[in-house]
């Protein structure tokens, strides 16, 4: 509405002059910058001694800054060009911008790619070490808090424990049953498909039984728990940390580990064996169903074969692992939550690393248990 911005070169009274006109506003800032850059380039040969701004229809911070930039480029040995025809309304703005840019400093130079790469490797290594130290630290803090609670049981937060057990146990049952049921179906189907080639259909029952009870049941449940409940723990504690709620607890004389972490970790330790048991049963049920419908194996044959194939040891191996995996998930989730710093991005990255680390440590732990049980002959 005020016309496009222009910057003309005129012959003034005592030397070349520039006349700015039109709307020098944010909307046109890109075009104005090009005009100013041209003028700056030409000024190297012959600097104008006057900038006439009387024809400027509208001016805002962007326009004012560009005029100021032009004025600085035209300054020769402390002789700044005159600014003429400045409307009274804009005087304050131009002065504010003039004072503003005085202490501008160039951006710092970034280091080279190789240095950055080496730095990234170094950071990653020291992070691994930090994680291990922090894990030991947090485990120690939880054990200490547990001992304090054992001495004074009335300080234990029973309501909180029940609440978290509902969240991570009871409410997780449907999804755990569904996932493990499907996994059981898939294992049985694959087994039948391949075993049939050499007439060993019936050994599917052995495979499903041993695999589900020893490994798959508890592992699938642990991974689901890490993704579902571990991430929730990290996000809850992280946002409490961001809002200084944890600091508030501390100043009121409560130990955050005792109030927030112990009930959460304990809830997981109690809930996970139950979930692992339910999950294993659902997987066996799925396996049996597929063996019957797809493999033509009658349910009573499946059951009697299962009784022969598996012993109580297989079941125990799976169940013994569950609480340890729960503890690892709980400790990592809470630790990551406590490590969240002020920003939303930090909350996101700690929640991600909570899930990734939990799953990693669960699988490492599973491997350690495999060696252990093999050596004691279970």
């Amino acid at each position, binding site marked *: 509405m005020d016309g496009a911005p222009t910057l003309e070169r005129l012959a003034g009274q005592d030397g070349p002059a520039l006349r700015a006109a039109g709307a020098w506003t944010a909307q046109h*800032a890109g075009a104005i910058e090009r005009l100013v850059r041209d003028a700056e380039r030409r000024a190297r040969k012959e600097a104008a001694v006057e900038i006439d701004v009387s024809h400027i229809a509208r001016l805002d911070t962007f326009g004012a800054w560009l005029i100021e930039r032009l004025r600085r480029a035209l300054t020769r040995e402390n002789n700044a060009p005159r600014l003429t025809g400045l409307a009274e309304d804009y005087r304050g703005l131009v002065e504010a911008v003039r004072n503003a840019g005085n202490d501008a400093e160039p951006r710092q130079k970034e280091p080279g790619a190789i240095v950055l790469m080496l730095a990234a490797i170094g950071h990653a290594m020291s992070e691994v070490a930090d994680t291990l130290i922090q894990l030991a630290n947090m485990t120690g803090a939880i054990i200490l808090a547990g001992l304090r609670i054992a001495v004074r049981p009335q300080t234990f937060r029973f309501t909180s424990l029940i609440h978290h057990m509902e969240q991570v146990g009871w409410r997780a049952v449907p999804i755990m049953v569904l996932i493990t049921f499907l996994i059981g179906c898939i294992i049985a189907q694959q087994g039948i498909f391949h075993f049939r080639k050499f007439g060993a259909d019936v050994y599917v029952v052995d495979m499903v039984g041993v695999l589900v009870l020893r490994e798959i049941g508890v592992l699938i449940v642990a991974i689901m728990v890490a993704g579902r409940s571990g991430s929730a723990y990290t996000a809850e504690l992280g946002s409490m940390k961001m809002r200084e709620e944890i600091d508030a607890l501390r100043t009121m004389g409560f130990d955050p580990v005792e109030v927030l972490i112990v009930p959460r970790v304990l809830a997981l330790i109690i809930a996970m064996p139950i979930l692992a048991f339910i999950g294993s049963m659902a997987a066996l049920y799925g396996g049996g169903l597929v063996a019957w419908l797809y493999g033509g194996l009658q349910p009573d044959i499946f059951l009697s074969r299962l009784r022969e194939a598996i012993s109580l040891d297989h079941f125990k191996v799976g169940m013994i692992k569950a609480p340890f995996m729960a503890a690892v998930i709980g400790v990592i989730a809470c630790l990551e939550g406590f490590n969240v710093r002020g*920003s939303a991005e930090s909350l996101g990255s700690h929640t991600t690393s909570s899930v990734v680390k939990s799953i990693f440590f669960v699988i490492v732990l599973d491997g350690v248990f495999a060696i252990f049980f093999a050596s004691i002959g279970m």
Partner: protein
Amino acid sequence: MAASDDNVIRVRELTVAFGRHVVLDRLDLEVKRGEILGFVGASGAGKSVLMRTIIGLVPKVSGHIEVFGVDLDQADDAARRVIERRWGVLFQHGALFSSLSVRQNIQFPIRENLDLSQTLMDEITVAKLAMVGLKPEVADRFPSELSGGMIKRVALARALALDPEIVFLDEPTSGLDPIGAGAFDELVRTLQRTLGLTVFMVTHDLDSLHTACDRIAVLGDGKVIAVGGMDVMLASEHPWVRAYFRGKRARVMTGEPALEQG
């Protein structure tokens, strides 16, 4: 261009309700071009709700809101976007993007709306920071590394990034110490003068009302119960307005002697 004494914001018969709870009940309010309007009311009376309704964050039940003479209900998306570019909002807690640095926060609206070179954006950022009284070094810090007062200033710089004509300030001085709050009032006043801003300021701060505002509107029972300068407020006989402007805490400012004290 419109005349300089017209109303840039005109709210008529505005009703806002959450479920059955009516917050604003057929409220009327006008904001004149170039003024600083202070908006006060008891906690929970709906001051922020009015602000958020005007900028379109809270849906209204009925009524009309005109900004720059355009009814926001009738405006299509493009027209709305043009209007949104002409206002800036300072949220109560700053609402800086925590994953972006101060520089990126201020450049965010510029980058989205204008096609400028990085050099010019950096220069403008420094200028904006200086206008709100911050040093250029602050540009590379992240919001979590700033103090409360600095967050407010950076948020104001971001609100001003596109040189808006109206700025909405939601409790700009809450959480600042009296000196910081005073400096912030002074800053708003200066910027209003240099940039020709219209300022809509929700506040609790009697000092702000006294030193920064041209007019004051008082919200009570879902309506504007009083509007005018400080003299009008002091003359008002409405019980809440009386209690607010002539209570113990207010007397220090107005220099009136404490009546109830012995």
